[in-house]
């Protein structure tokens, strides 16, 4: 193995140095040429400050190593100081953007006006809200009072909020009584058809008996709860009262599936 020559240092004209050194690695000889420029940076520090940097730590820190200790000194998260007279506006805009990115407040819908606020904070609560309550009051006065509203009048009886007059479904924007049971019917447009064949189900009625009367919103065949057998009674709701009336004339006394039908206006359910 050959000897490694001592490194050479050559001073260049531009003030830099060229260092040529040799090394042997894996039996191979390498020549390393480095060009180095030395720059002296002088930082002026107050004498007393420089002295204080050399001070020994004391008190609770007397035994700790030089340099910041992570248990007492930590870097915080980045904070921003944007100076300017319009900083408030800038910040508000940013917040708005952040809110929009989140999906904003659109989850909240007022049930009175459909606006972007809680119903209790609705600015139209007094005007629009009053309307609906006076409407129910009128309904109570009239003899054809809704059964639910009539219940309200019965003193000393508990009425669940959903059954109270003017109760609305919070999930819908509409103003009608959506709390009302889906199974409840509008008796003005509903016929009760009796003496039906046991085998006639809703679809049979729709497609074989009621097809001339346009769209039929609802057909319900009354069944025995245990056996599921038809009790030969069906309630049919029509689009309008006129169609319902013509259907009554048409169906009453007519034969269907070997039985003679008997049709009449449906009556409100009697609640006990």
């Amino acid at each position, binding site marked *: 193995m050959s000897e490694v020559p001592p490194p050479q240092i050559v001073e260049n004209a531009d003030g830099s140095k060229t260092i040529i050194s040799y090394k042997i690695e894996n039996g191979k000889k390498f020549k390393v040429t480095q060009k180095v420029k030395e720059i002296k940076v002088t930082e002026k520090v107050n004498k007393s400050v420089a002295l204080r940097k050399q001070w020994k730590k004391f008190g*609770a820190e*007397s035994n700790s190593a030089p340099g910041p200790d992570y248990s007492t000194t930590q870097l*915080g998260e980045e904070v921003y*100081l944007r100076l*300017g007279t319009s900083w408030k506006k800038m910040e508000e805009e940013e917040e708005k953007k952040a809110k929009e990115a989140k999906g904003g407040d659109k989850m909240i819908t007022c049930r009175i006006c459909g606006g972007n606020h809680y119903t209790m904070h609705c600015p139209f609560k007094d005007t629009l809200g009053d309307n609906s309550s006076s409407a129910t009051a009128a309904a109570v006065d009239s003899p054809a009072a809704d059964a639910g509203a009539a219940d309200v009048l019965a003193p000393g009886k508990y009425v669940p909020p959903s059954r109270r007059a003017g109760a609305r479904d919070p999930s819908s924007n509409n103003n009608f009584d959506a709390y009302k049971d889906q199974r409840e019917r509008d008796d003005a447009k509903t016929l009760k058809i009796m003496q039906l064949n046991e085998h006639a189900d809703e679809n049979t009625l729709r497609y074989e008996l009621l097809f001339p009367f346009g769209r039929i919103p609802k057909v319900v065949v009354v069944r025995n709860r245990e056996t599921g057998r038809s009790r030969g009674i069906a309630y049919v709701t029509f689009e309008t009262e006129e169609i319902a009336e013509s259907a009554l004339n048409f169906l009453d006394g007519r034969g269907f599936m070997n039985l003679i039908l008997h049709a009449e206006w449906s009556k409100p359910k009697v609640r006990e």
Partner: protein
Amino acid sequence: MRPIMLKGHERSLTQVKYNREGDLIFSCAKDSVASVWYSMNGERLGTFEGHQGTIWSIDVDQFTEYAVTGSADFSIKLWKVQDGSNVFTWKTKTPVRRVEFSPSGDKILAVLDGVMGYPGSVTVYDLKRDAQTNEIVDIAEEPAYNIMTREGFEIASVAAWSFEDKFIVVGHKDGKVSKYDGSTGEFVDSLELHEQNVSDVQFSPDKTYFITSSRDSNAKLVDVVSFEVLKAYEADCPLNSACITPLKQFVVLGGGQDAKDVTTTSSREGKFEARFYHKIFQDEIGRVKGHFGPLNYVAVSPQGTSYASGGEDGFVRLHHFDKSYFDFKYDVEKSAEAQKHMQQLEIAN
């Protein structure tokens, strides 16, 4: 700006101070140990141990030789900054709310609380220093004079020295600010500045004017000689501290909802932010968030390159300003500069 969080205290901070060169930060809190930190990297140099109660106030002399602390354990302690040794202890009649070295370093003022039948006072102690080494060679055990709470005033909450030890400016619990002669303690003047407790008085770098902050959400800039209000700054929350920035024409206000109300509000609503106002135009020009509780004290380094805030949350947040901070100028300032530059060009031609 990435703040350095100094987590050396177990309870809420009461005061944070820079030394004259701005390389050390002194902090004290409601736990009984004061700390000193390097402002460059947030490294803790050491702690001053010996008090038995809340340390309400800390100060360092202009030579960074000695520090003084005032505590609720009825004592004032003088410390050597270099090794944290306790040089002297004054016993007081009541808790000490505020201590400060005079600019010359030859006097110490202490605000004594008015409890247990004591009417409250600002008490001044004399020190004698060696002319060469600035070492304290003689300490007067008895106060040089007491400024007792005057009739018609409520007790003092804060006090500070003006230039050349000339005046002592005292902030009172009822919002009044009064001025006393620094050498004799004689009453000079008073102002009805605020409606509520004056929470802080800090002087400008040259100590010719000062800023007061109050729980009534206002901060005011007052000239110490004429005792006239120069500027007023209005904030939207109670203020605990205010300081004047060197280098730039700003003031920094710190405060927030009272500590006892904090649990009922989120940090957003509590307004726990350091607010920057333009000193001359009196506009709010920026805020810095970060604390989880009200800011109890804000201090700017005498070089104006960093500021530190001590919060009720027990942390000191040390911020070194970005370039944008130093570059910021009002449009009017910019146009005035441009005009000046044009004039100079004209003269040159």
